[in-house]
């Protein structure tokens, strides 16, 4: 159906404007003979001081020139201070604090050298250049019917000359070729962007298989020193990495990839506070270790509120309750932080005998499979 309501009457449905008399709603200025105000036309031009008074014009000229001169001054200051201000100099900037002298001086001089060109130009335009408004006519955006017909004729002649309508073999084979040629390019990019080892998402370097089946010592991050059980005093918090990270540090390769899933937070609570038996069993006398990677989008859950025994993620404020086996008590995360089972080895150091029982970090499609 044609959307041009007022012309489409008779069959089917049509919408009309309800303003009566069947008139089309047009801009007020185009309607004559109806009860509407007339456009009063352009108001008369009002002269500025500089248009009539040579002294005012002269004054404006001097003002503009002063702005441009100030710009040149700024440029000069920049060039001099680029060489004169030492790199390490600082000074006290009132209201802002200790500031790097070079940055402030270079920035202000550059800023003013640019700014005053603009101010000068605008002042010039506003005071001296003609401020008489000019009227330009608009024309319909659409081409005239003749031009449209001409364009259609030209294109049709072109199509006719290709013989495409009469040669379906070319038409369909061309369509096929054009439709398919992007596939190799797309395949190359998509196929080569990265190795995809989805199972790797479930793996961390706490896996004792990587350590010859031996339990893995808990190390302080970033010092990489082992943690004795008796050093973990009540209420203390340790940021922990596995002993197996040392291999990566020594080789200097894939350190961040390993750390990204291995980060653990170790906290000592009053054992009676822990309400979940599994959480108690996987810890040692109230010392418990949890993955520090948020189960929401993977930020480090770095804020520990000692009074409430809550762990808070600073990115999106997911809150985990340590006394409830790190269950989510608020925020956008769904799953609790995975617990790392720990024990004490013969030398009195904390070790993880099994690695994580579930994938750490943010959810992904295949996580539960």
């Amino acid at each position, binding site marked *: 159906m044609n*959307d*041009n309501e007022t012309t489409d009457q008779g069959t*089917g*449905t*049509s919408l*009309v*404007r309800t303003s009566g008399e069947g008139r089309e709603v047009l*801009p*007020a200025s185009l309607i004559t003979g109806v009860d509407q*105000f007339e*456009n*009063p036309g352009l*108001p*008369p031009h009002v002269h500025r001081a500089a248009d009539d008074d040579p002294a005012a014009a002269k004054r404006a000229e001097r003002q503009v020139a002063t702005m441009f001169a100030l710009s040149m001054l700024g440029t000069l200051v920049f060039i001099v201070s680029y060489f004169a201000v030492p790199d390490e100099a600082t000074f006290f*900037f009132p209201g*802002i604090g200790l*500031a*790097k002298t070079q*940055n402030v*001086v*270079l*920035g202000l001089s550059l*800023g003013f050298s640019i*700014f005053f060109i*603009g*101010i000068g*130009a605008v002042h010039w*335009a506003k005071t001296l*250049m003609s*401020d*008489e408004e*000019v*009227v*330009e*006519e*608009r024309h319909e*955006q659409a081409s005239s019917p003749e031009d449209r017909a001409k364009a259609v004729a030209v294109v049709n002649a072109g199509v006719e000359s290709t013989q495409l309508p009469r040669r379906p073999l070319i038409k369909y084979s061309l369509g096929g070729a054009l439709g398919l040629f992007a596939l190799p390019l797309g395949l190359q990019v998509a196929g080569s*962007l*990265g190795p*995809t*080892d*989805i199972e790797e*998402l479930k793996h961390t370097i706490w896996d004792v298989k990587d350590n010859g089946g031996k339990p893995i010592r808990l190390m302080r991050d*970033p010092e990489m020193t082992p943690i004795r059980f008796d050093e973990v005093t009540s209420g203390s918090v340790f940021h922990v990495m596995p002993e197996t990270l040392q291999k990566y540090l020594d080789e*200097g390769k894939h350190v*961040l*990839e390993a750390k990204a899933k291995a980060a653990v937070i170790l906290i000592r609570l009053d054992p009676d506070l822990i309400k979940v038996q599994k959480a108690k069993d996987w810890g040692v006398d109230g010392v418990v270790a949890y993955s520090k990677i948020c189960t*929401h*989008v*993977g930020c480090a859950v*770095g804020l520990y509120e000692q009074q409430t025994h809550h762990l808070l993620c*600073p990115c*999106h404020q997911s809150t985990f309750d340590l006394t409830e086996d790190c269950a989510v008590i608020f925020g*956008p*995360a769904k799953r609790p932080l995975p617990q790392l089972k720990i024990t004490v080895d013969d030398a009195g150091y904390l070790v993880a005998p099994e690695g994580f029982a579930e994938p750490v*970090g*943010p959810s*992904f*499609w*295949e996580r539960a499979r």
Partner: protein
Amino acid sequence: MSTINETRPADALRAGDSQADERAAAAKPLGGIAGWMDDRLGGAKGVSFLAKKVFPDHWSFMLGEIAMYSMIVCLLTGAFLTFWFVPSASQVVYDGSYVPLQGVTMSDAYRSTLAISFDIRGGLLIRQIHHWAALIFVVAVFVHMARVFFTGAFRKPREINWVFGTVLSLLACIEGFAGYSLPDDLLSGTGIRAMNGFMQSAPVIGSYMSYFIFGGAFPGEAIIPRLYSAHVLLIPAILVGLFTAHILLVFLHKHTQFPGPGRTNKNVVGYPLMPVYIAKAGGFFFIVFGVIALISAVVTINPIWAYGPYDPSPITAGSQPDWYMGFADGALRLLPGFLEFVSWGNFTWSMNIFPGSLVLLPLMWTIIGVYPFVEAWVTGDKREHHLLDRPRNAPTRTAIGIAGISMYVVLFLAAGNDLMAIKLHLSINDITQTLRVLFFVAPPVAFWITKRICLSLQRADRQKVLHGRETGTIWRYADGRFEEIHAPLTPDERWALVQHESQEPLQLTAGKDANGVDSPIARKERLRAKFSHFYFRDRVAPATPSELEAAHHEHGDHGGVADGGHEAIEPAGAGAERETIKADKQLD
């Protein structure tokens, strides 16, 4: 004060006016370099066409200019930064001049950003100008977009340019995100870590997307160079291309103008490009650039040296993205965790993340992009519009816009829920819960309030036209009555208040075809009529001359003031009979 020229038609020139063509005719013939160029390029025609191009004046038209200029500043300073920035995640040990980080292992990207900040003279200034210009660019883009929306500048024939602008604003945000991720500091690395979480949240392909984008396991060494090529090549190329098309269409369509005396849908009234707009707009580039440089001189932005290099284990409290990503971050903070579930086949659906990360941006920008087409369908308006609407004269559109903005603001505030909790000593849980409710409640409330305000303003306009402007002069009559004197508007003053059209809802005439059966078209049209009703049900028609006439008579009947009622500006001797109390506002 201006006087009124009653007889001259709207499009006529004034006595002193001259057409740009006539001025050009007196010019000297081309010689020298210009002549040499024209011999080869034939550019004289184009130059005279461009030079006399007319642009209307309004402060709000400068918003787009701010966006354009700050983008140019970004391109300029960005080119500088590429001379020193090393887009590499390979680990090095820092030995530069910033003492607290000496000996620390970090990526080359972070090391080179430190070098730009501390070891390259003026490097910090360029870096800060780049960052400030980017922030101002995105602000200006959004405010410009709001101006175009609320004034209806997106209507035919400018829908395509609205779509271009929509894509530009989305690209601006993505470009900004890619840019602030490059230094590989702790804050931006945390942002990339969250981005990895977003990728993984996509159903079916999420894990693969993450591995493709990061070139393996997070973080890997591929993401920095890949973001770099997106930031300096791919996105800027599209951005500059689309921006050029955006500007060309402005030239093609000629700029819209606000309604005013002498301004019609068929003309454009303003100043020519040469010389006024070259000076004003060109000068404004220097003002924008200058102000950005001044800000960068004294206000630190993104002090990456204070954050340290990226490491997945530590984190800073109050981790927040740059402002334009705030609303998406806020959406993630508001989405409750229970939306995540595991379906049959043990597949994990991260519906606590996916809608706020990967869906939100494309969805929001699609809604913005299609709005002109929806409104055009509802109004059934096929005409070209070159005169802008005053926002009050399109109450429903304005209300829809404010409702959308209120939704955006709720999400934006949510991104600062931790900061609000700390600064205002409130519970973060309460703030988050409140914002969750507000996300659904604020838009309808904002819609209703805005629409009422618009309608009230329209009524106020009517009042002003019919009964004149309040003068602040209060007359006391002999019988003890007090009355404030209203001065009638001049036709020039009045015009802006009465020129608009007030569309009435479309109504169905017949909903059935010849056989009396509802046609599918009829259903579509019924829907359209409903929308039309929603848009135009509440309307305040502009005052008409006959209403003004009637108002005069009415006043004449009871006003008791001879000849034109009490709307005369000059008491004209009648004042002698009355005691006049002058308010602080004097008559002119």
